[in-house]
């Protein structure tokens, strides 16, 4: 990684954007997974009560 004149690390933005993006995607995927799982649980409960 390149350093600026005063020893400051420069060019870290792609890593920063990747870290925030991965966090956002992981949380969004988990929310979507829980929504799908709840729909499935509701269907199973409904079919169980119909039996």
């Amino acid at each position: 990684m390149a350093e600026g004149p005063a020893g400051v690390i420069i060019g870290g933005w792609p890593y920063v954007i990747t870290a925030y993006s991965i966090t956002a995607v992981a949380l969004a995927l988990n929310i979507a997974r829980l929504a799908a799982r709840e729909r499935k649980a509701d269907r199973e409960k409904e079919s169980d009560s119909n039996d």
Partner: protein
Amino acid sequence: MRNVATGIGLLGILLLLVGSYVGLFVAPPERHMGDVQRIMYVHVPTAWIGLLCSTFAMIFAVAYLWTGRNRWDDRLVGALEISVILGGLLLVQGMLWGRVTWGVWWTWDVRLTTSLIMFLLFAGVLALRSFVEEPLRRATWSSVATIIAYVDVPLVYFCVRWFRSLHQMPSSPETVHSSMIIPLRINAFAMLFIAIWLIAWRARIESKSRGAERPPERIEIKGALNG
């Protein structure tokens, strides 16, 4: 109760957007690390709330073993899952930061190693749950395994004080500049609210799924009647 949890979750998402905006575009770059230090505004809250969720999981495990009530097992699953997600994110964010500041994606430093072990242990408890079909045994075994896995959590937090480590000491208002504290705190509350929401949501799903599960005796009786 469901609406309250969803409201907390939506507030958490809103706070995460605000905190990330402040961390990315308002807070100044750090003196030595420059802009890459901005990863801290998501990495540190992920670590704090990940460790807190692991502690929740341990408390729920003890509560289940103490009372035998299913509601604690439902919450245990929720806390375990969010602990594993935040633990995985913690490792990935740390690797990105390490690549820029230390020059390597990974090193067997004591903080990194104990964090990896914590992630694997809690993921292992979830794997154990998926192998056990009998509900009572599944809840008991996963509670015991969670308590055993939790032994690593204090190690993760205190290892940088107890051993020589590349990783910096735990952040606190005394060690962080005031302009960097605001996005850190906003994102910490955001992660906490999102974690509470996801734990409550997962617990509700587990409770519904348990309702759909039939005890073996009932199936046998029904089969006997049909026969």
